[in-house]
């Protein structure tokens, strides 16, 4: 038997709802709140049941329009690169600071998306981020945490 992707997603949602409902029943409430008409568990319990009912209906009822996605036309390679670069960016942003991490993220993203105009890539990364930081931090007075620039004395 072949299960359609929509039904598979609905099945995952069903599992999520069951887990959510289980977690909802395990929310610790104050002793005096235990039998109250409404406590911290009530709304999540309703939601858990709603999720179970809706996903069950989606799984059980016949599918009217099956959505066909041609996976051969999907660019898994580029999206994987972008997600990995984004994850590395998120991991290092606090350690090496906003300016360097963002500039390197932009430069790497341009490269992996197939751009090879090095001059433009450079302008739209390091100077662009500098200008953006000046706009936020210098002109709009929005605090931008950057330990590295603070260390070398560029930012106050």
């Amino acid at each position, binding site marked *: 038997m072949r299960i359609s992707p929509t039904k598979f997603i609905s099945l995952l949602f069903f599992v999520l709802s069951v887990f959510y409902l289980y977690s909802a029943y395990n929310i610790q409430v104050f002793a005096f709140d235990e039998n109250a*008409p409404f406590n911290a568990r009530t709304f999540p319990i309703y939601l858990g049941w709603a999720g179970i009912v809706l996903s069950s209906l989606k799984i059980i009822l016949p599918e009217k329009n099956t959505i066909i996605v041609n996976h051969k036309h*999907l660019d898994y390679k580029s999206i994987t690169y*972008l997600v990995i670069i984004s994850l590395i960016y998120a991991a290092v942003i606090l350690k090496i600071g906003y300016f360097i991490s963002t500039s390197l993220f932009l430069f790497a993203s341009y490269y992996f998306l197939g751009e090879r105009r090095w001059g433009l890539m450079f302008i739209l990364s390091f100077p662009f981020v500098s200008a953006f930081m000046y706009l936020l931090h210098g002109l709009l007075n929005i605090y931008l945490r950057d330990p590295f620039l603070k260390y070398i004395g560029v930012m106050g």
Partner: protein
Amino acid sequence: MIEGILIGLSTALSFTNILMVMVGCFAGTIIGMLPGLGPMTAIALMIPITYGFDPSTGLILMAGVYYGAVFGGSTSSILLNAPGIPGTVATAFDGYPMAQQGKAGKALAIAAYSSFAGGTISAIFLLIAAPSLSKVSLAFRSPDYFALMILGLTAISAFSSKGQFLKAMMMVVLGLMLATVGQDSLSDITRFTFNNMNLTDGISFVLIVMATFAMSEALTIIFRGKDPNRAAKQISLTELGSIKVNKEETIKMAKTIPRSSILGFLIGVLPGAGATIASFLAYGMERNYVNEEEKQKFGKGSVHGLSAPETANNAACSGSFVPLLTLGIPGSGTTAVMLGALLGFGIQPGPRLYQTNPEIFWSVIMSMYIGMVVLLILNLPLIPYIARILAVPRNYLIPLILFFSVTGIYLMSFNNFDIFLMIGIAVVATFLRLYDFPMPPLILAFVLGGLMEETLRRSLLISDGSPNFLWDRPITLIILIITIVIIFWQIFSTFRKKT
């Protein structure tokens, strides 16, 4: 009232205050355009600046920023499908497809005219009906709000799901589930945090909207090998001509604007409802009003579909000032920030504001007209330049969208957990989009989740745990009957399509 209007005009038309409206509208438009930086951020940034001014000037500046940011948010919705605020999510439904068809300039012009008309009409309503309308919103109780939110979520599921009602309702439940993460507002009990301190304050709205719209849109473009640059090339070639709105489109707008203004204003008056519900309901209502041929164009670049939410969200912005100024209850998150600023000035908004500070009450209302004119004059000539954002090639546009998304989140918390979470949600949203699971119901549910739980809590406590509150009050009952009609209509239309 005439005396009040004159007081308001004399205050609002002072050189300083006109300058503040202009600066506010311009700054708001620029900030609102950047995905992740919505009017709340923009107004919050203005609070320290306004302490240097007198209260009416400060409030006028913030009101200008509010309108500007709402328009700026519409711009990023139309051009990038990246709404900075929930009130402009519905704008993207037809604005973005229109931009992709090479009509970005026209879409922005329709948005500007609709915003102007919606804002102006609702400012007139505000002027005439502020005192009596506050009584209407006072008549609403928790069960009515709860029913109204159920109606809003059902309506958005019905109207944005492209015939996939169950999928949309699943997204609603997912949005509500995400909204329950973090501390319970009343008891402070943490829920679904799994001992992770980063989740104690819950998941931020900006994170969810960035992940499910901006970031996932960027990833989808790469994933499907789409090229948004195609539309951009057309815009750059025909940028001046594309701003013009033809006679047929003007007639369509003229039909849409009055009803969306009234709806937007009335929804805006209800505390907590605001621009988001107004824009979604206006979109849904408009879809019901138009003929079958026009209905087919919804979601593909319909003039009605773009004009309705734009009119309604601006009308709701004006409407949200009614509970703020007359009751001291903010009508939206943005007016809540304004309430904080007013309290900082030592002013307590409420029924006595008329008597104690009439110049504040009336000058804010008068500045709304000026703000709308400024927005139109400021934004229309800038449309060809704003539209050029789309001319950025895909290889640059995608990393820049990701950059703005990450920066928006980083600015809020300086915490890389939020960035990881955003990437995770964006990847999931990208796959869900592939199989036509709509994101707008998730967003609206997430925004309303906290308020919905609060109103349900109050309703159940008042009725001692009994579900009687659902039919005890006529307003609640009527709203729920409308909701049931929508659900049955969905079932019926599915059955009709099958047969």
